[in-house]
Each structure stands twice: as C-alpha cells, then as structure tokens.
C-alpha cells in the first residue's frame, strides 16, 4: 500500500475525501452516543437495532423502488424503532427477560430482512444492485449528498446531546432520582434512544447492519479506560470512532472488493486492545505493573520491620541478625537476600558480617515511618 500517496489522495481525491469525511462523521456520532449506551448497560440494544434495520431497508426499497439513502435510512430507523418497541413490550408484558427478548427480536428481524433481500435480488430488473452492501457496508459507495445528509443528522444529534447534557447524565447515573426531581424520565429515555437509533442508521451504509454495533460499543468502552470524566469520555469516544472510521474506510477503499464493516471493526479492535492493555489505572498491564511494584515494596518494608522488631527485642538498633532468622520471619516468601541487597543499596541496612544484617540509622527512621504510616492508614475510614 502506498501510504503517503493515500494521504495526499485523502485531501485531493474527491472520492477518498468523501469516504473519509463520511466515515469520520459516523465515527464521531456513534462514538459519542455509544458512550451513553455503554454507561446505561444497553450495549446490546445497538446490536438489536442495527440488525433489525435490515428489513426496514428492504421494505423501504420494495415500497418506493428508490435507493436514495434518505429513503433507506428512514426505513431502517422505522424498523429499528419497531424492534425496540417489541423488545420493551415483551419485557413489560411477559416474564421473558431483557436479554432474551433482545435476542429473539434481533434474530427474527434479521432473518426476515435476509428473506426480503433474497427476494429482491431474484427480481429480473437490475435496480436491486447494491442493496446487499448494507450487510457488511461499502464506504466506497458514499456520495457527497450522503455525506451532507449524515452531517446534518449527526450534527443535530450531537447538538441535542449537548443541550440535554445534565439531563442525560442524570438519566444515565440515577433515573429514579431524576424522576423524583421532576424530569420526565420516559421521554428523556425515548429521546436518547432515538439519538442512538440515528447514530446507528447513519453508519449502516458504511459499516453494514452486521457489524454496526461495534461502532456503538467499542469506541466508548475504549474511552472509558482512559478517563473518569463523562465529558472527556464522550469526546475521546468520538475521536476513537472517527479514527477507526477513517482508517477502516481508507483500508477498504484501497483494496478492491473489501467491505468496510470488517476493516472498521479491525481498526476499532486495535484501539480496544491498546486501551484494555495500556490505559493508566484500568489497563491490564498497568494493574499488573502496579501489583508487582506493590508486592516488591511490601516485601522491603516487611524486612525493615522484621529487623526493627528484632532490634527492639535486643534493645540495640545496631544489632546484627543472620539471614536465616530473617528468612524464617518472612514466612517463606523468598527473595530475602535480594531484598536485603536492594535495601543496602539504598543505605537502609548494612551487612555487619557476611550473612549478618543490621539496620542503619536511616533504615531505623524509615522503618518507624512506614510503621506509623500503616497504623495511621488503619485509623482512616
């Protein structure tokens, strides 16, 4: 692949610029709104709604004979909505649980959509060509007017999110409390769900119904790793979404016949993996490293304290003790000799004779400090 060439094309090639812009918009909108879906533990709702959109797209085409994106988007949104209503009414009127209802509706709608798609494709005329692109997405098919539509819808969705910032935050954190404050929780819920539906249908043409839910969940889950602030999380999630969107779309556009959905999912997966591993505090590697360091520090402190208590017993801070006694006191945790070497490098202990160790004056102070810190910590509730 000619990377520098691709970059110059990004700015000067009309098709590539359209594709990149469209994918960026879809990434920003799905990343931002996906944050709410993830925080409200509704990640799978996106999956259900995107799969359920397929029969809507097919029906819209069958009824109108048009492949205008706006027509198909309206069909997709309507079907997604009907699916959501089905899920809610199943949960409310039967004993079927939420996840089961989700799974049922998702597969029934998707299956129905596939049937419709097959029927459409068997028709003799050639107008159906391209509808199956909605399965896995084809960013290369984006036209400038599609991008304009996406831009307007996406900007409205983001604007509403910004206006209802505090309401959505409260709704996501504590809906019952929001209700007691007088906010119409059900209406807010409908607005937020509608915005998520918009985010999903915006991406259907580019990413496809099968993998669109990845764009709702993955950027938000990655962003959550890096920050504990809702605003930063949403901005970061939008950025991750745009990054994955653009790189996935360009990748797909530069390889013939490669659908965009899979390439975007591969790109976003890289972001997810890096975030899960490396993010400070929540990342796996970070935690592992911190635990290791903690263990090392505790071991050193333990030996200092052992020496200190031995010194107290003998009433002599400089009293030397043999390695075997210290090994015994550390209860077989091992690494005593190495820890002593580290401590002596720091000037906290000294070897009086080979295999006999004692605290230095600095070591004595350090031991007293850590012990008082620890008892201070247990006082703190």
């Amino acid at each position, binding site marked *: 692949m000619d990377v520098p060439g691709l970059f110059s094309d990004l700015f000067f090639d009309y098709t590539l610029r359209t594709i990149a812009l469209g994918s960026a918009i879809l990434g920003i909108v799905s990343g931002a709104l996906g944050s709410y879906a993830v925080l409200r533990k509704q990640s799978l709702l996106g999956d259900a709604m995107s799969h359920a959109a397929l029969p809507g797209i097919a029906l819209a085409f069958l009824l109108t004979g048009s492949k205008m994106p706006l027509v198909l988007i309206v069909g997709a949104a309507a079907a997604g909505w009907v699916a959501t209503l089905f899920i809610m009414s199943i949960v409310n009127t039967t004993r079927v649980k939420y996840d089961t209802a989700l799974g049922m509706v998702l597969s029934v709608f998707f299956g129905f959509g596939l049937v419709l798609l097959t029927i459409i494709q068997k028709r003799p005329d050639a107008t159906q060509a391209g509808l199956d692109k909605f399965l896995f997405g084809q960013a290369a098919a984006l036209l400038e007017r599609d991008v304009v539509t996406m831009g307007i819808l996406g900007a409205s969705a983001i604007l509403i999110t910004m206006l209802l910032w505090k309401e959505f935050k409260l709704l996501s954190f504590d809906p019952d409390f929001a209700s007691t404050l007088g906010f119409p929780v059900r209406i807010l819920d409908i607005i937020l769900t509608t915005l998520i539906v918009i985010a999903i249908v915006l991406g259907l043409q580019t990413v496809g119904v099968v993998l669109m839910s990845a764009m709702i969940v993955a950027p938000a889950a990655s962003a959550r790793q890096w920050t504990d*602030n809702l605003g930063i999380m949403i901005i970061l999630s939008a950025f991750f979404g745009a990054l994955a969107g653009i790189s996935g779309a360009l990748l797909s556009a530069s390889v013939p016949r490669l659908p965009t959905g899979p390439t975007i999912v591969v790109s976003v997966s890289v972001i997810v993996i890096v975030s899960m591993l490396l993010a400070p505090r929540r990342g796996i590697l970070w935690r592992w490293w911190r635990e290791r360091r903690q263990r090392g520090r505790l071991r050193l402190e333990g030996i200092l304290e052992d020496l200190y208590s031995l010194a107290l017993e003998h009433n002599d801070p400089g009293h030397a003790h043999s390695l075997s006694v210290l090994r015994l006191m550390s209860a077989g945790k091992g690494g005593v000799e190495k820890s002593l070497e580290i401590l002596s490098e720091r000037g906290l202990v000294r070897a009086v004779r080979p295999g006999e160790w004692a605290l230095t004056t600095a070591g004595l102070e350090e031991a007293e400090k850590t012990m008082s810190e620890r008892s201070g910590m247990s006082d703190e509730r």
Partner: protein
Amino acid sequence: MNSEAAITVEDLTVAYGEKPVLWDVDLTVPSGVLMAIIGPNGAGKTTLIKAVLDLVNTAAGQVLIYGESYQKQRRLVGYVPQRGSVDWDFPTNVKDVVMMGRYGALGWLKRPGRQERDMALAALEKVGMSRYAERQISQLSGGQQQRVFLARALVQDALVYLMDEPFQGVDATTERAIVSLLQELRAQGRTVVVVHHDLQTVPEYFDWTALLNVRLIASGPVQEVFTEENLRLTYGGRVSFLRHGEPNGAPEAEKRTGERGI
C-alpha cells in the same frame, strides 16, 4: 411548623404481577417527625417509599404532601435511594453527584455553576466528606457512598426526606454521624422518613415509627406503637428480643435478634 400532615397516604395498594406488595395502606406522617419504617424483608418498605415518590405504578390509592398531590409538591420532597441502586463505576466525581441534587431546581438546559458548586461543598462539609469532593465515586467505601447520597439530598433543601436504608453497610461511627444529621434536620422542622432494619436502635434514634408487613400494622409515636405485640404482628412469632411483661422495654443486649439475624 406546619400543623398539617407532611405525608398522607390513603388506600395505597401496589402489586407486582398478582402478588400484592402493599395492601390498602393508610398512613399519616405528621410534620416534623423522624420516622422509621420497619418490617421484615418483602414487607413493602421500599415500595412504600417509591409509591410516595411516584416511582412505581400503584393499583389504587393516593399520596398527599402537605395536603396537595405529590406531582405539585415534588420540590418539597428529597430522596435518598438505596446505595446499591446505582452503578458506582459511573465516570464522575463526588462533587458532581452531590450537585445533581440541584438539577431539579435548575430546570431544563441550564448547567450547574458556582452557586451549585458551593452548595455541594457545604453539604459535603456537613457529612464530613469535604476532603473527597474531587474523588472518583468508584473509589468510595460503602459508608462514603451513603454520605454522598445524603449530601445530594441535603442540597435539595427539601421539607420532607425519604431515605431507603441510609445505614446499610456503614460502620458504627458513620451511623451515629448520620443519625445526628437526621436529628438536626428534624430540629429544623423537616420531616424525615427512613426505611430501617435494626430494631434495636428504633427507640434511640426515632420518635415516630410505622410497622409494615404488606398491610400497615401500626403507626405512631415510638413509645406507643413500638410494642412487643405490634412487633409480633409485624414479624410473626420471630421476634423475641423484648423482655416479657415489659411492653415498652429497652432491648436486652444478650438476646439481640434484629431482622438480619433471622
């Protein structure tokens, strides 16, 4: 102080499916009392609070706050939900959660500002949590979470407070701190209704109580209704911590059987 009842519940019935959770409850909470709602698990204590707050669908009955419907008087009522009812891993900090108590007064679209922040900090000071204002809520202990919720209710500046198990999972020191805070609220003429689990502390902490087991068994001043007979009616034959022949007697330390112990 207002002579009118703070909360009036009339003929309240709530059912989940076919099973009634609350059956024909009539309850009057006078203004300015500190009241405990007690009763066994599944007695409908939480449901009663949620029904007053219009958070559950009621099959029958009505709720009045100072003589008017709850919808009209919403602003007068503060709420402390159960600690476990929210996800404490939500990306926000202590001060932000407390400021949420002002969202209702702020109204639509307006963002919280300096005034809200100052109120939140003052409330955190009151519950002994000012040091934690900027802390992530995921890093709080159970007792600290409880105090954050209390602070959030304080900034609501309500006349009537409904609290669902504010002592759940807090240590003895925090419990005493919360109790004195509740008593301070009562001293200001506010009404505080608490879902409570520990029968031992009812006479010490509260001046009013309601005994509930799907139906309302009794309600009134603690000295009058917190009797062995009423407790037996509420909990079945399972409560034996009151001394025989001493209907209003102090709890006996060696025979402690709170609800949790059963």
